């Protein structure tokens, strides 16, 4: 947009960050590198935290924006389909928390491992699932990522172990994955997520103990969205400093609504694990706009004003958008174009998810055992013998 000098450095204050802007011209293309300084994360048993600056390239910014927007629109579409009764059962939506999923993924590699609880649609996407597969799984169709047999809480991709319905059970599983990484010596790590509600589970403390004892390369991440179903953190936890609950495990607490914060912290944590220092704990302070699930309106235990305030002041997508626009990293039209593309992708996926046929009844008894010869399964009555293949 017009002629720019070859170098320009500006320093100004935005919210609680300092922004150092550096603009460079190369071959008539604008490349914008944004250096951001923010306040230190809260640290527990750590001398230093993640670096206080991050480089965001234009390309990265657009990619993060697109992914977060995709998750947002996908979740809102799921809300719509649920109200139309096309999605049934449990549906735990992730809108508001997009910066966590996107930030974490950009801090690790696809060859690393990740496991989370039931609010998993965002992670299924960042871990390689497509919107089509995810939505078709929600509507219970054969094109779903788990062929319609898992549903909202049981989606899997390569190196993504779900999607787990039992609160807290995924944490020992994640440490087990980390044990396998250490055992096989492949320099991979496991990111193991849980919420503020799960943080009080006994098996999580059992896992902290073993992960620390055996120096497992495991990043424990508590997504603190301030409510465990309808119970606020103050009513559930004697100590709400979730990043300290690992006791002997070093921890950090940071703003989970800022995708760059999350990315840098994840990189820092990944480095910690890969260097053999053992596990580390991150608490991401975030927020969910929807209730706990689609059967929870989400306003009986919190005020609409609170939700509105977060939406207007801390929305992760708006934050990234403002940052990019106010620093000329992208134009309004470009971002609008991305919005349109995302909307189209979601529409197509929803179309697929509502028209794809349900799984065939022949599939009912399949996938009981892996690598086994076909077997018979008793049906609902003694005369019905159903076939099961691996």
């Amino acid at each position, binding site marked *: 947009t017009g002629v720019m000098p070859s170098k320009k450095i500006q320093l100004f204050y935005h919210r609680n960050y300092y922004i150092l802007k550096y603009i460079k011209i190369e071959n008539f293309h604008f490349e914008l590198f944004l250096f951001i300084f923010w306040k230190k994360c809260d640290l527990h048993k750590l001398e230093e935290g993640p670096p206080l600056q991050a480089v965001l390239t234009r390309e990265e910014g657009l990619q993060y924006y697109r992914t977060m927007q995709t998750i947002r629109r996908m979740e809102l579409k799921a809300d719509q389909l649920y109200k139309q009764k096309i999605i049934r059962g449990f549906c735990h939506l992730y809108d508001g928390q997009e910066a966590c999923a996107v930030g974490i993924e950009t801090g690790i590699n696809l060859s690393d491992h990740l496991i989370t609880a039931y609010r998993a649609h965002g992670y299924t996407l960042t871990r390689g699932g497509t919107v089509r597969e995810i939505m078709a799984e929600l509507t219970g169709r054969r094109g779903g990522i788990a062929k319609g047999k898992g549903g909202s809480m049981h989606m899997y991709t390569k190196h993504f172990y779900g999607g787990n319905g039992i609160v807290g059970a995924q944490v020992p*599983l994640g*440490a087990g994955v980390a*044990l396998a990484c250490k*055992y096989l010596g492949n320099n991979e790590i496991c990111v193991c997520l849980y919420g503020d509600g799960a943080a009080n589970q006994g098996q999580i403390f059992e896992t902290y103990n073993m992960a620390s004892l055996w120096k497992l390369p495991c990043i424990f991440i508590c997504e603190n969205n301030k409510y465990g179903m309808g119970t606020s953190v103050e009513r559930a936890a004697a100590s709400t400093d979730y990043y300290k609950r690992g006791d002997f495990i070093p921890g950090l607490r940071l703003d989970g609504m800022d995708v760059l914060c999350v990315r840098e912290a994840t990189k820092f944590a990944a480095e910690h694990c890969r260097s053999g220092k053992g596990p580390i704990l991150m608490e991401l302070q975030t927020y969910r706009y929807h209730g706990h699930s689609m059967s929870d309106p989400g306003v009986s235990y919190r005020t609409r004003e609170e939700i509105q305030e977060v939406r207007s002041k801390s929305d992760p997508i708006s934050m990234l958008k403002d940052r990019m626009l106010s620093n000329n990293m992208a134009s309004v039209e470009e971002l609008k174009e991305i919005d349109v593309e995302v909307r189209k992708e979601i529409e197509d996926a929803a179309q697929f998810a509502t028209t794809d046929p349900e799984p065939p009844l022949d599939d009912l008894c399949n996938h*009981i*055992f892996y690598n086994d010869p076909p077997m018979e399964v008793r049906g609902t009555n003694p005369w019905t013998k159903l076939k099961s293949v691996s």
Partner: protein
Amino acid sequence: MFLRHAVWYYHAFLYSILRYHVTVRDALNQALDEELERDERVFLLGEEVAQYDGAYKVSRGLWKKYGDKRIIDTPITEMGFAGIAVGAAMAGLRPICEFMTFNFSMQAIDQVINSAAKTYYMSAGLQPVPIVFRGPNGASAGVAAQHSQCFAAWYGHCPGLKVVSPWSAEDAKGLLKSAIRDDNPVVFLENELMYGVPFEMSEEAQSKDFLLPIGKAKIERQGNHVTLVSHSRMVSLCLDAAAVLAKEGIECEVINMRTIRPLDAEAIETSVMKTNHLITVEGGWPQFGVGAEILARIMEGPAFNFLDAPAVRVTGVDIPMPYAKILEDNSIPQIKDIIFSVKKTLNV
């Protein structure tokens, strides 16, 4: 000189007899050793499995041989370490998770059922879980109520699991090897009172690739008058009862189930169609138990029409296990109970 040779021959003779007798404990140990050697991904974790050589010495010598990486001592946190074992299985290893007794598996039962058994199905085939949960199950001697429960029925209830209950040393070795090589979650129910019992091991069973198929029962004794179906330690009692009954001219066919799930209903049906009488014998409680399932299957299947008398169950008494010896002895089936039930069924 002659005396020395004679002594040598005597010892060789003794040795040749003893060589073919192996206790259940040693058979399990051999199976673990062979499978650890065969596949790098196999490892054992549990309480006291490494430096203590195993609470019941089943893993004796393994830590010395394989080290900390393959034989892992865990803290006393069943839910945690069972979950860690399942996670490791999901990520490509082949863990053997030992519960000191299956009573403690109740702490971790969510990981066994919800994380291990159901995952392959929920993921529609994307995520297998090749894990073995093993340990002693059922009544021991004088360990009282909290340490004596039989879990065959509870685990046998769940799709996605294979549940194995060996009796002899050969069973123990062949089935444990199969369980470890199986790509699915297997619950392997051993028995503490059987650990020290020696059995003859055939030549075949001494090979490093000796496997027994999961899901196939074995007829331990042929007979024509009544079918006795049992698993684990109760097979010994059935054989003893059969020996006593044989003197009175009653020939019992004794079936060793070997596997609880998938149940070899066909073997039982074939036998019932021959003998026309069925008695199941188990150490666990009667309600909703292994015997109840067998009887239901016989009712629903082709063998029903061959029954000359109602099929019955011999089970543990429907109470928590008491401590005093006289009470404990009368809480589980004894040989006389089996003999009594056979005579009642045959109406003699």
